[in-house]
């Protein structure tokens, strides 16, 4: 049985070998190698002293593994910070207040988890109502999603900033979460399809048993789309964890980890050269890489847009 499998695998491999696929294989190998080399270089650089980096910028750190500069990672926890100046609120007047790594991580978690949760919840509940009930507002919402996705609107950020300030939610997490509580986008359509293809028998049986609409949604329908909910939550969490441009505009006194990473090239003080910068990059990338390693199948699942021709 195993021999047969090996033989058929070999046959498949030989059949698919052609100059075309070989060329593709070489290109993909070079691409993958460039990515792996970059990540390994960053890791090894993080384990060098500044002096060693000057003499040996490209290759493995010299000496025994235990003698490599593991202390760079310890230093990240002590020395990674963002200075913040407050012009309003309870801290008004304070300038150059250092937000350390713990503070940065706290702000990142609040921003990423909160935004991802409200984002996925808004899309999920809206898609459920639109797919389940034949109300006019449902049809309007579906049309709005399609039109908004097709119509490119450029340069509305200044207006959005002015509005958040007028509403008193500028530079607050509540404000950032409200901004992300939008049902617009591809994920709405994914939820819409998920709910549409759930057999109506579930709802009918629950209704006969006297279940109300809230019970049907929270106890029956939501558990049925649990996997989709988790997948979209993870994708949004990764997106917001990695996002530094939105916090830079809307949360200037609540810097996140990625905001601090973006400031790294500006830190020219002695002792904060390439090895320390790479150590910072590795430390901030690790949580996301671990998350990806655990949920890679869910994250890279069956994502398709546009369909295929029949």
């Amino acid at each position, binding site marked *: 049985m195993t021999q047969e499998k090996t033989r058929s695998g070999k046959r498949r491999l030989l059949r698919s070998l052609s100059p075309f696929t070989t060329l593709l294989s070489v290109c993909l190998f070079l691409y993958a190698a460039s990515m792996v080399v970059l990540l390994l270089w*960053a890791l090894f650089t993080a384990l060098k002293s500044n002096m060693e980096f000057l003499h040996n910028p490209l290759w493995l750190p010299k000496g025994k593994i235990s003698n490599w500069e593991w202390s760079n990672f310890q230093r990240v926890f002590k020395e990674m910070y963002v200075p913040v100046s407050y012009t309003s609120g309870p801290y008004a007047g304070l300038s150059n207040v250092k937000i350390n790594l713990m503070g940065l991580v706290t702000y990142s978690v609040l921003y990423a988890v909160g935004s991802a949760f409200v984002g996925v919840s808004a899309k999920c509940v809206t898609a459920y109502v639109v797919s389940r009930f034949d109300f006019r507002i449902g049809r309007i919402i579906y049309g709005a999603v399609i039109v908004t996705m097709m119509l490119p609107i450029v340069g509305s950020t200044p207006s959005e900033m002015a509005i958040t300030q007028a509403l008193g939610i500028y530079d607050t997490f509540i404000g950032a979460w409200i901004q992300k509580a939008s049902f617009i986008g591809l994920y709405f359509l994914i939820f819409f399809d998920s709910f549409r293809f759930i057999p109506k028998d579930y709802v009918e049986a629950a209704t006969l048993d006297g279940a109300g609409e809230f019970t049907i949604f929270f106890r029956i329908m939501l558990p049925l789309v649990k996997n989709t909910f988790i997948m979209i939550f993870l994708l949004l969490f990764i997106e917001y*964890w990695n996002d530094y441009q939105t916090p830079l505009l809307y949360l200037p006194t609540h810097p996140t980890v990625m905001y601090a990473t973006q400031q790294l090239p500006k830190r020219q003080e002695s002792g904060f050269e390439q090895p320390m910068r790479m150590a910072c990059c590795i430390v901030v990338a690790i949580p996301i890489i671990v998350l990806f390693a655990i949920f890679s199948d869910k994250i890279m699942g069956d994502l398709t847009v546009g369909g295929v021709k029949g």
Partner: protein
Amino acid sequence: MASVSQKKVKRKHKTGQIVFATVMLAIPVLQYIVFYIGVNFNSVLMAFRSYERTNHGWASEFAGFSNFRLVFDNIFGKDSVELKAAFGNSFKLCFYNLCLKTPIALLFSYYICKKLFLHKTYRTILFLPNIISSVTLVIMFMNFIDGGLLEYTGSGLINAQNRPLLVFYWIWSSLGITVLVYSNAMGKVDVSIVESARLDGAGPAREFISIYLPIIFPSVVTFIVSTLSAMFIDQMNLFSFYTNGANTEHVTIGYYLYRETQRATIGGELDKSIFPMLSAFGLLLTFICAPITLGIRALLMKIGGEEK
């Protein structure tokens, strides 16, 4: 009697549905009204106003078309360099996207969809730049080229803002999601079609061009449309590389808009004086971009036929 009670139950049921829908939709709909309709409406209003700082905060007044004149001066004026370059760069970027990135992504997707040697590893590695933050990857790349490879390259290529290298990085780091979507779409192609083509003597290259490409055409159209609609949003990672200091000749419209908006936040308090000009510029860009995107979408869908 029974029908009266049935009617009552039905009415109660309908009321329950209306209450449920109202409660569930209240926040998302309100958010849409304020942060989509309200924001865009306010953006149009701002394009015709000017802001001035007073002792009591910011005061605004009607400014007619002066913001639009300012935009046109910045684009077509004798001394204008940046916005002219930005337009050119954004169009070039869109061209690179369609003529370089899309074909590369399609070819890589074919390899992955055919489950050839190491396809799973390549798929994961291609997706990594979508997982690792763009700013982290930019810093690693920048330090690798200008620090690690310096003795081989002979100069700080990133510091010198080497354009081909910036374009290379932009393509290299953004293939993942496109490859994932295309390979998933290719995976849905009917195996019997591919097998019968094989029996007729079609090789992999023929199979890719004559079977896979036409069948996944709707997915390609979706990506072309999203590329066109993001034409004036794409920053080519310039803000991650250089913050506010990208060379004028490399600036894209997306980078320009973000950089100028971000400048308004420097100093702790929002500086609204630049907002009207940016809103006017955004409005003009929408008028350029929307018909192009919708027109090309309609054209491509006409050529490509129906999807399933």
